[in-house]
């Protein structure tokens, strides 16, 4: 009964600490969680998966947390853009694997080492097929090592999940033109098990070189 109480109290405290302030797209908000960031595959939306992930990587590196990018696609972020967004590329580990299962296995190994504070798994160009058992294992590891796993996925609709109920945080990232060369990065959170209610985070940003 006591140990149960301790676990409850600890989870209560960590949850309440996260809830203490206004919701924010930052590592502290997502710490110890499996997160899913979606881009709508419909052409009516402009995806901002990479920009949102880059913002989080820069935040993690500011907290001295090592970051790994696991890519299961034949495309990569354009590294100079990450550098101009404040990411230390020297400290960014990149893994290139074939599919979602391999990406999950690689994530498992990296999390077990306890060295990484953030893993970004880019599954936007492959079929997102990871079993619940694997996700449950990853969930346990992120809790143990106070890490964050952020899956970048495509979805047909904003409320549809690519990974199911195992993720404790689900959001949709999109960009919107504000004026010439200026954009708004919008993160619309549809599932947040800690806060319980949907929330939205917006940040203005410039276009890539040539568009801003």
């Amino acid at each position, binding site marked *: 009964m006591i140990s149960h109480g301790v676990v409850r109290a600890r989870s209560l405290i960590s949850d309440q600490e996260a809830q203490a302030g206004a919701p924010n797209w930052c590592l502290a908000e997502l710490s110890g969680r499996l997160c899913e960031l979606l881009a709508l595959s419909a052409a009516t939306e402009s995806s901002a*998966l990479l920009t949102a992930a880059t913002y989080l990587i820069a935040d993690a590196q500011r907290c001295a947390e090592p970051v790994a990018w696991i890519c299961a696609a034949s495309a990569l972020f354009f590294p100079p853009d990450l550098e101009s967004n404040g990411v230390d590329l020297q400290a960014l580990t*990149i893994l290139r694997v074939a599919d979602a299962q391999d990406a999950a296995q690689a994530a498992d190994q990296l999390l077990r080492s306890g060295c990484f504070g953030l893993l970004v798994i880019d599954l936007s160009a492959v079929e997102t097929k990871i079993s619940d058992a694997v996700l449950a294992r990853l969930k346990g590891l992120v809790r143990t090592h106070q890490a964050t796993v952020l899956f970048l996925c495509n979805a047909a609709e904003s409320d549809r999940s690519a990974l199911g109920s195992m993720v404790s945080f689900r959001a949709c990232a999109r960009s919107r033109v504000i004026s010439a060369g200026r954009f708004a990065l919008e993160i619309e959170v549809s599932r947040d098990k800690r806060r319980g209610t949907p929330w939205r985070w917006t940040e203005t940003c410039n276009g890539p070189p040539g568009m801003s």
Partner: protein
Amino acid sequence: MVRPACLSIVQFPLQILLNANPEWSSHAVAVVSEDKPLGIILETNRVAREAGVQRGMRYSVALTVCPALQADVVGSDAVQQQIDECISLLYRHTPHVEECSFDPGTFWLDARGLESLYRSVEQWVGALRSAMAGIGYFCRICVGFSRFGSYAGAKSATRLFRSSAQERRWAQSAAVSLLPFTPKVQQRLAQLGITTVAEFCALPRESIRNRFGAETDTVYRFAVEDDIVPLQGSAPLSELTSTTRPAAPIRDRTLLLAEIESLLLDVLSQTVAAGLYLQQLCIELTFEDQTLQREVLRPAAASRDAAVWLRLLRLRIEELSASSGVLRLALNAEAAAAPVSQNELFSAVVKRDPAAAAGAFARLRARFGNGVVCRVVLQQEHRPDRQFVLLPLDRLQLPAVRTDVNQQGLQLVRRIYDSASELPARDRLRPAAGPFIVAGRWWEQESERHYYYAYHGKRIVWLYYDSETDLWMLQGSVE
């Protein structure tokens, strides 16, 4: 070496009353429990004592003895307000101030390491007395080696104990009337012929609560128990409370523990929400026979770690002897903002060991091939696809703090395909920006490329026109 100093404001409620009514200073003045004829005289000044007014007297009787008596009630709010004022003042002279829970107007101060600031402990004591006099309070200060010893010393005069043995001898021989007992308890002790602290401490522990009540028991425990808890700062404090009244009286210890545990979780969640740390927990148990039992728990340092509190709680509850069931439980917690070191202790930052990553990299290379783990190295090239290369990574490097970050803020990030693919059709694209002409390596007869951004619906794609092949190629997208 621990050097607690006890600062005791003499007749604290009376001084509050006199500070609030300075015109009464030359009159007979008394503090009463209530402003009614049956109110009890709690404190008197010298003029009133000389006129025959005594502690414990009824207000009506005191007025008969001394018709010019000025008396009033000093409420707990006023007392607490003055205590807070004193604490803020005392913090200017010491790093730790601990308020006495059973004797308002008494504080323990940390006297260690202040010699370099005040030359000597005596000068520090003098500075404290002057500061207190500045806000209208006459006090006595005793620098000793334990809470009780310094307390007993400060109750009679300002003094400095040179050794713990001297302090112990003095405390044992001190008059029991120095302890904060009600007039009724003082009278009963006198009837029993108990005049010194040593005699009081020799009374059987079990009978104190039954004979004299819970308040006397608190003082007794203070006098006889070892003083091992370090001084704990008491400002700024917040009171947090959680109460429950079980459906049926709780007689089972396990059930009682479970009930208190749920109250504790409630209190802890309140401290987290307020950004505070629990410093003291007072458990109030009301039994079926209407007796009230108070248990006070204090950890070595303020904490909101549930495991720490539950461990202390279990130890205390195991020692609890209850004759009847518990009707009501209340948890009163004192919480305070933690010092920076405390935040660091429970910080969520986890130590990452880059060496441990090397093993993970080796396993990944064995599983997926030697080129699986890599890092990006930027290149000085014009063509986007040549502006970086991926090189194998053996050892994890911790991130450096970047000072050369783009000052213009966040920028949208492009995705670049490993190999550009031919655009099937351009009729659904709307130009967004371009062309940006990038020359190839002329010495290798490479052609120019005309880079563009275009909208495909609302998506932004990144493409180029190859002048040599006359093809439109998809280089990537903006995400």
